[in-house]
């Protein structure tokens, strides 16, 4: 019964997220609104960690598995990438290195300034 209660809270947060998205027509995915709502509920103490942690940890530790069908769908969109593989990889490599460097130095710079105070 413990698990069913946890599932109810998690799916409840998701459902409210979807409802908010539909009603307010905001371009934020319902599941992300659900994430924010559950975080706020945990933060304010409305929901205790024990009330969701088993199911959350289960879902999180199996997250990669859940993406298989989404990735397999690439077989129906393959023509989008054929002929574009070089730009595809070039964009990924350049952006990933740039983002890493930008983030690293921004954090380092700001932390450095703080530690002098």
């Amino acid at each position, binding site marked *: 019964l413990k698990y069913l209660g946890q599932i109810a809270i*998690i799916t409840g*947060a*998701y459902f409210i997220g979807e409802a908010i998205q539909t009603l307010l027509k905001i*371009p*934020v*995915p319902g*599941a*992300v609104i*659900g*994430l*924010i*709502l*559950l*975080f706020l509920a*945990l*933060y304010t103490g409305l929901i205790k*960690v024990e009330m*969701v942690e088993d*199911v*959350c*940890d289960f879902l*999180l530790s199996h*997250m*990669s*598995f*859940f*993406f*298989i*069908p*989404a*990735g*397999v*769908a*690439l*077989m129906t*969109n393959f023509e*989008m*990438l054929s002929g*574009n593989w070089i*730009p*595809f990889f070039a*964009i*990924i490599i*350049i*952006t*990933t*290195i*740039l*983002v*890493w*460097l*930008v*983030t*690293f*130095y*921004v*954090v*380092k710079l*700001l*932390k450095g300034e703080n530690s002098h105070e």
Partner: protein
Amino acid sequence: MSELVKSPVFGLLISLIAFQAGAYVKKKLKLSVFNPLLIAIILVILFLTLTNISYEDYNYGGRMISFFLYPATVSLALPLYRKFHLFRKNVLPICAGILCGAVSSIACTIFLARLFGLSEKLTLSLIPKSITTPIGMAVSEQMGGVPPVTVVAIIITGILGSITGPFLYRVLKINDKVAMGIAMGSSSHAIGTAKAVEIGETEGAMSGLTMAIAGIATVFLAPAMWKLYLIIFQ
């Protein structure tokens, strides 16, 4: 035979087998390139292509698996809550790092996609590639991209980031665990975080926290920056 293939059990079963195979390869070879999810996706696509089974048939079972993505996304709230005390200790560097990381990721992708002359659909599919898969896929769908392309781009970004990140860190010879963790989370989401966890506890925790916040930030930044790009260039 075609009746059997249309049964939801079929898609579920071959996904489970493919993932086990992927996990086995990863365990044996221990290299970041062998990501279990990527291997599983390739195996299922190969199997379906060779046996001439359509994606629609596979997806009777696939849908059951995909359904779990939504509650799994909501579950990201828990690690965010657990690591939030780290955020409060470093509010300014974390916020600035994530913001600059997300903005540079989106801007660089749009710029390079334009340079290569990629279609709008493909560009939109690539924009959320630095963030965690559940949020990235949702952003892609919302903006008019093609989610499967985004999923594959996100996985490849994660794999590459988990190789280049630690390499840059060694080459630069700057010892800063917090900056390292935030850079891993902002450039290569969950796969980078898994690598950061191997490197150290602080790096892993900072990376995990960053991954969640960067994902949420991109939900708002990506459509805004895309609109700005359209206004300026068209």
